[in-house]
């Protein structure tokens, strides 16, 4: 679900933090170079040179996330991600990983709502090596029952370590979609029931690969120190011969308008302090209200100057921090379907959930009741611009590859990366208020309360 190959948890956390940044293109003329190609087999290729350091990012995104995995195989999209490291035509088990490492690179993969990605950061002169390796596993897998069984064990230990053996395990990122959504595709356990993970067969692996891991269901982004012409020649050499495959039609992912507030209590036998999360369905991507929601997120929740922090932390002293955003497993741009804006906090038993919701509403009611002042809106725009700069250079260019691949996959338009700022700038205080009135309605939200039951 999160990142699977990192040897060090701290680096995973740092990486996720980077992905949580959301941004706007700078007014001061910084533009992301974007070259967009499509191979005859349908593979989308995005090139974005950046010569800051002699490294290059190769990122392959497949248009299959955990949302649409098979209904009797919850957690399968994620388990499958592990299988992509278990052997392909020319690379046996561990050989992909060793190839990248011994060429001085780092690699990872992750499974998200609407894509599964695989990427390497390698020294610039190893671009061809990385492209060859990604093409090799796009061409076909070579998985044994032994390797499948091994990774079922690894994934089960991943779920134990991240969820089952942790206080607040899965809170709120894994829990909340299951309560807030009504459509199975958005509301099932994305990590998977352990029984489903154990039930997976080699036949499932073969079928899933055949269906979804075709070039016409993928995007390849290259960011870093390379020559676009040379890179394109290499891409054609290694990827052009991989055949396309017919794609199944996408299921209906839509969520109905929520008309009634939900309130859910979950007991946690490992926790000793209560926690609370609140989530609202957000406007559809690329609508004016969507950009307004991105700014509301900045105003309400992001940074030390945010209104919720100011009120809940500084003024009320209910918690030491409140955090969240749009799409906790990424950012407000890298998904393609219904999504939640979510915030969560830890508190003491001396403060009730009702106290917190009341204080929360004092902030939310205010942005519904009157338009935010221009200074607050301007500050939100600066924060977005600043974090966008980090996003497009973050993790050695991977942050940029992530946006480019997402925009290619979901919108067939990676150059969108350079239009975001204009869209955010169009948002007026009136639109912010209107968006808040519709989407921050109490009826549009789910409140999730963690009741600590440590030792019981």
């Amino acid at each position: 679900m999160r990142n699977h190959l990192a040897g060090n948890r701290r680096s995973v956390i740092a990486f996720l933090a980077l992905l949580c940044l959301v941004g706007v293109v700078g007014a001061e003329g910084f533009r992301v170079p974007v070259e967009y190609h499509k191979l005859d087999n349908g593979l989308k290729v995005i090139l974005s040179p950046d010569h800051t350091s002699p490294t290059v990012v190769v990122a392959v995104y497949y248009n299959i996330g955990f949302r649409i995995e098979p209904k009797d195989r919850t957690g399968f999209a994620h388990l499958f991600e592990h299988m992509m490291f278990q052997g392909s035509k020319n690379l046996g088990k561990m050989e992909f990983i060793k190839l990248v490492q011994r060429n001085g690179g780092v690699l990872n993969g992750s499974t998200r709502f609407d894509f599964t990605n695989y990427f390497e950061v390698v020294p610039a002169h190893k671009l061809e090596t990385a492209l060859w390796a990604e093409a090799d596993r796009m061409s076909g897998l070579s998985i044994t029952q032994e390797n499948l069984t091994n990774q079922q064990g690894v994934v089960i230990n991943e779920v134990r370590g991240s969820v089952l053996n942790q206080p607040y395990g899965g809170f709120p990122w894994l829990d909340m979609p299951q309560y807030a959504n009504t459509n199975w595709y958005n509301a099932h356990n994305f990590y998977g029931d352990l029984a489903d993970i154990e039930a997976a067969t080699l036949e499932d692996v073969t079928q899933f690969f055949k269906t979804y891991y075709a070039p016409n269901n993928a995007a390849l982004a290259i960011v870093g120190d390379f020559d676009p012409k040379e890179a394109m020649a290499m891409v054609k050499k290694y990827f052009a011969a991989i055949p396309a495959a017919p794609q199944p039609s996408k299921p209906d992912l839509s969520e109905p308008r929520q008309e009634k507030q939900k309130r859910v209590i979950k007991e946690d036998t490992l926790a000793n302090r209560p926690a609370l999360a609140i989530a609202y369905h957000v406007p559809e991507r690329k609508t004016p209200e969507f950009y307004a929601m991105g700014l509301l997120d900045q105003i309400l929740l992001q940074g030390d100057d945010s209104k919720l922090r100011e009120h809940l932390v500084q003024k009320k002293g209910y918690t030491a921090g409140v955090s969240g955003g749009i799409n906790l497993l990424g950012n407000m741009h890298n998904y393609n379907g219904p999504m939640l804006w979510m915030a969560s906090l830890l508190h003491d038993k001396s403060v009730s959930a009702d106290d917190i919701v009341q204080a929360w509403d004092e902030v939310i009611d205010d942005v519904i009741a009157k338009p935010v002042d221009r200074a607050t809106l301007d500050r939100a725009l600066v924060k977005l611009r600043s974090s966008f700069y980090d996003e497009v250079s973050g993790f050695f260019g991977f942050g940029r590859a992530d946006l480019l691949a997402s925009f290619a996959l979901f919108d067939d338009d990676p150059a969108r990366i350079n239009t975001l700022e204009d869209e955010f700038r169009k948002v007026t205080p009136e639109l912010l208020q209107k968006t808040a009135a519709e989407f921050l309605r109490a009826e549009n939200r789910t409140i999730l309360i963690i009741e600590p039951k440590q030792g019981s």
Partner: protein
Amino acid sequence: MKSILVKTIVITAFLSSFGWAQKELPPEGGKPRDFSLPQKQQFTLENGVAVTLVPFGTIPKVTVSVVVRTGNVNEEAHQVWLADVVGDMMKEGTTSRSATQVAQEAAQMGGDVSINVTPDQSTISGDVLSEFGPKFIALIGDVVRNPLFPESELERIKVGRVRDLNVNLAQPGSLAQEAFMRALYPDHPYGRVFPKQADLERFTIDDVKGFYVKNFGAQRTAVFVAGVFDAKVIEKAIRRAFEGWEKGPAVLVNVPKARTGQSFHLVERPGAPQSTIYFGLPVIDKSDNDYVKLVVTNSLLGGSFASRITSNIREKKGYTYSPYSMVSNRYRSAFWAEVADVGTEVTGPALKEIIAEINQLQSEPPSADELKGIQNYLAGTFVLQNSTRQGIIGQLNDLRLHGLPDVYLSNYVKNVHAVTPEDVQKTTQKYIRDEDMALVIVGDKAKVEEQIKDFVKVNPEGK
């Protein structure tokens, strides 16, 4: 019959030498490109503030990091986390700016003032748009030099820290780390990871102010700036922000005497589906000549994804998800440890494999090819470590903390490549001695105890 058999053999040989059974080899790639460490400009203010400016990249942002040589190492036994509370309280406003003003001013520049306290250092830093670099330095200078320490906010900060403490005590990873550090540093601040709640609740505003006065000042401070900026303007801003600051206390050196020798610590976590393991011992620190050899050895043994322990207990056995070994990085003190969350039912087998991998590397040098792979990996990640603003500052701050010369970085890749297979074997024998390790397990005692009795020969210290 006979002839058919011969034919079959010939055909098989033919096919395997010409094709379908033969795998394609990966392309080598092009010629390596030059990498040199970014140029830096350094100077020291009269009061002792050490300044390093590193122009880097093209993204119009700048990172400012003020590093003060104080942290948990300066706490008394009853003051654990006082350094953290001081850090929290520094965000509660200055003599001329409220907390809200600090937050809003920083946000207007595209950033936050963040404060991070570690055992050896307290860092006050932020990333802002380049155009605001000088203004941000002024803001951060005010936060560092003129904290208001309003008593009205202390209770709230302490309540937050008490909550934080209790949440930590519910996490297996935190519990394991605490027990491990206590085992290695029984009489030193490094061994005191968590405070007693009652001690924490007793902190007064005078404790906070006292710690600050005793530990903050110019000669303990370094300022790092990296990114896109005008060096002249930034230098002026730094002088204006820091030149008037008192010299303050000298750096207090407090190097622990770490405990070596086998010990065993089982922290009970009833019903836990996994055992959280820390297994390690004190080793040489970064200032030692053998240190790079230890780094290479660690990467090969357990410190990278393709390493031996990870290949074994994750990719071969499926016992665990994210195991790793590490060499810690504190002033004149380091430890090596293997850290892993393994299935409760395979705690014993996992330990057996970890020890077998250590013993294997003690008894036989790795192949030149395996070592080469690790050396290339370290050389590649070194470039990555020096390819972000925060990474560059991290590397230079590290040099400063350990008192190492610039050649440590400029010769690092060369020194990595100079390590031989025999060096790796000897380094393992000399420093990664399983018979001298502390073993911590946080897990279900009833299910674990029987599995590990073979590994625990002395001093079982149940808890």
